[in-house]
């Protein structure tokens, strides 16, 4: 039965997915211009992303991978800052340090990731453990795919999470290509894997974002209440946007236009200042690094033309 709340949620999810598709389109344009070196489209996976976000509370922490980088936008990050990070331009909150798609949005509890698949699973386990130690009514959710499921970090994170009953939700997204997934993790199902660790496992169809939201709501509730981690087996296949009523061209086109305008503004501001290269390595810059910064700034000032005088 459809209720007003479920209709509102479906409408919100539909708009979120449409906006995500506009972002994919924009990133593809930027990549063709050589402005974004790396980006991972989320098209087809949005049910896992936006359904899960709808099932969480604002205090829950998020761990993704480059495909999930856009989640900061749903946790209060401005489109301008997000684009500045993707483009590595002045004004980005990560100072141009991160690889596109691996940045953070601390205010929204979005954690930066690395290019090493699976490493974020251990961090989500650690944050989930810290939440339990502190008694916070929150959990950590980490999305991951078949590549991460092949790593030792996957085993370690699930083993520790089971031992300490951490407040963690592990969300597996299959690729939608069963043969490709089998090349990475064999025939073992997520159900078999999770059960092997003594962790609760539930399956959900990523093509049904409302089902994902319900599934994550329950898993998060259990995690927050001290009942331990859940491994969600998210299947990728049918188009999640179709299940919600399809495209919203006006919203998609407007966001594309907004992104294009912002990109030109950001490009006009240029790259971050050279000093930012040396910032935030340590809380306090050691004299040895300060010396290197001085040498670098002196060199760049002398050879600003790119030629020997």
């Amino acid at each position, binding site marked *: 039965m459809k209720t007003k709340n479920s209709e509102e949620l479906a409408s919100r999810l539909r708009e979120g997915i449409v906006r995500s598709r506009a972002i994919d389109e924009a990133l593809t344009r930027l990549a063709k211009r050589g402005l974004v070196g790396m980006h991972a489209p989320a098209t087809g996976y949005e049910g896992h992303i936006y359904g899960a976000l709808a099932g969480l509370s604002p205090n829950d*922490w998020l761990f993704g991978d480059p495909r999930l980088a856009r989640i900061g936008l749903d946790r209060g990050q401005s489109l301008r800052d997000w684009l500045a990070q993707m483009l590595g331009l002045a004004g*980005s*909150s*990560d*100072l141009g*340090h*991160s690889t596109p798609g*691996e*940045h*953070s*949005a*601390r205010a929204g509890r979005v*954690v*930066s990731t*690395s290019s*090493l698949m699976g*490493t974020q*699973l*251990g*961090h*989500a*386990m*650690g*944050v*989930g*453990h*810290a*939440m339990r*130690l*502190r008694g916070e009514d929150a959990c*950590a959710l980490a999305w991951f795919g078949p590549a991460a499921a092949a790593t*030792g*970090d996957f085993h*370690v*994170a699930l*083993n*520790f999470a089971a*031992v300490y009953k951490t407040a963690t939700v592990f969300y597996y997204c299959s690729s939608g290509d069963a043969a490709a997934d089998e090349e990475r993790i064999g025939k073992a199902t997520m159900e078999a894997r999770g059960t092997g660790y003594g962790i609760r496992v539930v399956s959900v169809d990523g093509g049904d974002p409302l089902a994902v939201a319900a599934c994550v709501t329950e898993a998060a509730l259990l995690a927050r209440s001290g009942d331990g981690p859940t491994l969600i087996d998210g299947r990728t296949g049918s188009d999640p946007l179709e299940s919600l009523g399809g495209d919203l061209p006006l919203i998609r086109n407007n966001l594309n236009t907004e992104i294009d305008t912002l990109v030109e503004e950001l490009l006009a501001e240029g790259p971050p200042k050279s000093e930012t290269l040396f*910032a*935030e*390595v*340590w*809380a306090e810059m*050691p*004299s*040895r*690094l300060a010396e290197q910064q001085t040498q670098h700034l002196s060199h760049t000032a002398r050879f600003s033309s790119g030629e020997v005088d």
Partner: protein
Amino acid sequence: MPTMNIIQAVNSALDLALGSDEDVFVFGEDVGKFGGVFRATDGLQATHGDHRVFDTPLSEGGIIGMAIGMAIYGLKPVPEIQFSDFIYPAFDQIVNEMAKFRYRSGGEYPCPVTIRTPFGGGIRGGHYHSQSPEAYFAHTAGLKVVVPSDPYTAKGLLLASIADPDPVIFLEPKRVYRASRAEVPEEAYTLPIGKAAIDREGSDLTVITYGAMLHEARRAADLLAENDISAEVIDLRSLVPLDEETILESVKKTGRVVIVHEAARTCGFGGELAAIIAEKALLHLEAPILRVTGYDTPFPFTLEQQYLPDALKIFEACETTIDF
């Protein structure tokens, strides 16, 4: 003031940190109920509870991954890696994650983990209980590398490391865990990270070292004194950040340098020290900079005493530089 060995000083520091800051957590393999294989955490679980001091599964990558999560959340984890030889399964988490969290997030996610780990040889531990991995970590931007040499520095530097806003690799010289004894204040105190100590003043040459090798350098300095050679001995205490000022002042005074560490010579931290001295004090040098180090072999079992630097090897190198 009580007399402590290094184990007791480390235990005292952890006890004080746990007692004064509820964000501090101590964990690792056998650190809880058992109190650690070297007893460094003995009694801490009973005093502070099994949620503050706890045992972990045997997985270094898991221990450090969990510590990183706890640190970015806002806690101050102090994990123990039972032997520094076992730290390599956690190397990716340390180098690619812990060291880079602050930088890659533009300062949004500091990662103040203090990893305690015994290092160095001399206990008949063979390949996998004797290594000195400091150069790997000193090479990684974002980490601090701290090496106490005695009980006093162990307690003061460990408390400073736990209070530090950045990740610290805290290398404990296990060979002198119990052999080194000194008066140590019962109360909490810190020593500055990045400040070396002139352990012994001298005028003819400078011996630069850290960790357990400080004690061999002291014995070498005694032998040299019997031969009318005055050696100044510097205990670095911290490799990153490095106290260049103290090193260069001494080198400019003596003009002769011998660097001592247990780790293998090639790409060891001594090479970096030699380069700094060559860059900044070349015209003050009266002789080539010499290194007394472990050899470029895996750490041996039977012949470890031949592998390790000792007072006589240091003495010989000092003689060579004096005679140059």
